[in-house]
């Protein structure tokens, strides 16, 4: 009998709670996720209504925000037990982040933007940066700055930058939100392919049904996040096949 080799757990979230203080001074719980996890190389799409805490959830996983309670393990390391500089270090070494608005440094060339993604981790490797940019089809645009690139090309730079440190986990927040349908499809495939090539787990937030339908595992934040009940449910939930909705990763403790 063949047994599939269990892959390592890259992300393990337990009882994660984050509360903000609303403008009227009332505490508002934005994230309350009892359990969520991902395996190495796994690709998960996350959707939810606007304001349901998707970005906050990603920021918590990235260590950009600090949770009120609960634990987050990334690549075996407990992010929530680290101080801020420790979280910065873990993010630099183990995670890549693709933003909807790309967040490229406007004064830097494509190559420098990718090198920036390495700078705070293992260190700058110019050959690797060139290789990544060539892989995303920008080998001829290394010295172009973002304003000199099309929106699609900027997105590709952002993808290359997110993978610059050979991350174990790539977080993508509406990465195709600023692209038209044709470019959106191409960009999504590029992100997924490159993550596959690097065996990086991909957690992608999107509200676009076309995007979500391409993933085997799709999670609705409204179901994961108990706090989201109060903020509405996803417009995608009704359109998503039940088979695409899966429980948190098996094997995650």
């Amino acid at each position, binding site marked *: 009998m063949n047994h599939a080799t269990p892959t390592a757990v890259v992300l393990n979230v337990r009882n994660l709670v984050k509360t903000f203080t609303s403008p009227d001074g009332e505490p508002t719980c934005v994230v309350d996720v009892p359990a969520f996890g991902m395996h190495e190389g796994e690709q998960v799409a996350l959707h939810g209504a606007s304001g*349901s805490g998707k970005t906050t959830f990603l920021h918590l996983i990235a260590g950009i925000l600090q949770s009120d309670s609960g634990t987050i393990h990334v690549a075996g390391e407990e992010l929530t037990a680290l101080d801020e500089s420790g979280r*910065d270090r873990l993010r630099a070494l183990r995670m890549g982040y693709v933003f909807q608005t790309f967040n490229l440094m406007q004064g830097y060339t494509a190559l420098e933007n990718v090198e920036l993604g390495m700078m705070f981790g293992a260190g700058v490797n110019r050959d690797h940066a060139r290789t990544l940019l060539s892989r995303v089809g920008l080998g001829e645009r290394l010295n172009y700055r973002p304003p000199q690139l099309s929106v699609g090309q900027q997105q590709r730079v952002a993808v290359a930058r997110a993978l610059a440190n050979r991350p174990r986990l790539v977080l993508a927040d509406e990465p195709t939100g600023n692209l038209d349908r044709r470019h959106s499809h191409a960009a999504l495939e590029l992100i997924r392919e490159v993550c596959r090539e690097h065996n990086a787990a991909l957690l992608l937030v999107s509200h676009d049904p076309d995007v979500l339908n391409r993933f085997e595992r799709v999670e609705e934040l409204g179901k994961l996040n108990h706090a989201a009940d109060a903020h509405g449910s996803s417009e995608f939930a009704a359109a998503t096949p039940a088979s695409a909705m899966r429980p948190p990763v098996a094997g995650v403790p």
Partner: protein
Amino acid sequence: MRPGLMMIVRRSLRQHALSTAITVTSVALASGLVMSVFSIKEQTYEAFTGGPVGFDAVLGARGSQLQLVLNSVFHLETSPGNIPWSMYQAIGRDPGVELAVPYAVGDNFQGFRIVGTTPELFTKFEYQQGRRLTPRDGGRIFDPARHEAVIGSYVAQMTGVTVGATINPYHGLQYDATRRHNDEYTVVGVLEPSNSPSDRVVWIPIEGIYRMSGHVLRGTGKATVAREGETIPDEAKEVSAVMLKLNDPQAGMYLDQTINRQGKVATLAWPIGRVMADLFGKIGWVNQVLALVAYLVVVVAAGSIVASIYNTMNERRREFAILRSLGARRSTVLSAIVLESTTITALGALCGYAVYAAILSGTVVAVRAQTGVVLDPLRFDSVLVVTPAVMVGLGALAGLIPAFKAYRTDVASNLVPAS
């Protein structure tokens, strides 16, 4: 330094090139100004109080020692009056006097002072140890019995007069084209530069002054005009000043006592450096005002560093958030800002040397033209090290203000709108 920090700084400077250039310029001006003020102050003080004067004391008419020194040593100001020739002879015989050289003034050549003197000025007087006023190759000193002149190097440079040329003196110490003497003097020598006020002088035999057309001698108390072919009696002669080289300081003290305290007809300016130091002491407040202005310029420059970086903070807040999202620590962002302000100041301080060189070059020309004293723009002064170092330190401190703002940048709220 963390890896890549300099790259972040370089990119930021490039991105904000205009404000960087303006700040670098203001720092350069501040640094250059401070270095210039203190270096010029130091050099002028040294040049006027201990420069290549060569003489220890000046004997002249009763009056201001400062005026006497300015007139006879620096060839500025008007003469305080004359003293009889006999006084020159008497002091020349004093055992404490090693050398006495008479000066008679009253004319100019194109604004450069004509001084009548004796050949001892060239044959015995040393303006520095072992260095005499020497004519360049092809020249010689004047014959005291002829209408001959020796001119200083700066006079030659500015007027274009060379050996063999004939010049006409003009009456008075200020140049007035209508007051031309008909007497002609042949230039027989151009002196090697001495970097002293002597470079701005036309030297002629002292008899030439006495015999100049229109000059009247009053040594006897009556107006006497020297006649061609007749010897001028010593009683009729007067001198504007007697330049003295003394054997030792005790001689100076003795002469000071007998001439200044007990006598009533003459003044001894001794020591020359002290007389000039008194002048600098009196105008010391000017230096203090200049220093204050320079310090204020430094403060303004430091403020411009803060302003230039602080003004870009809003647009850069997102950049800091991006850097943080890529794993940069708060301390890295803080260091980048401080390093940026330090780099701007260091660039400014470097450019400050160019400003300093420009100011010094202009000052050297002006001071030389006015006084004959030559300042050295290349002379090392501790202010040339201290000022840039202080500027860079101030720049780093100034950078801390925006740096702490960057340090506190909230990453999540400055990245993208939350979905």
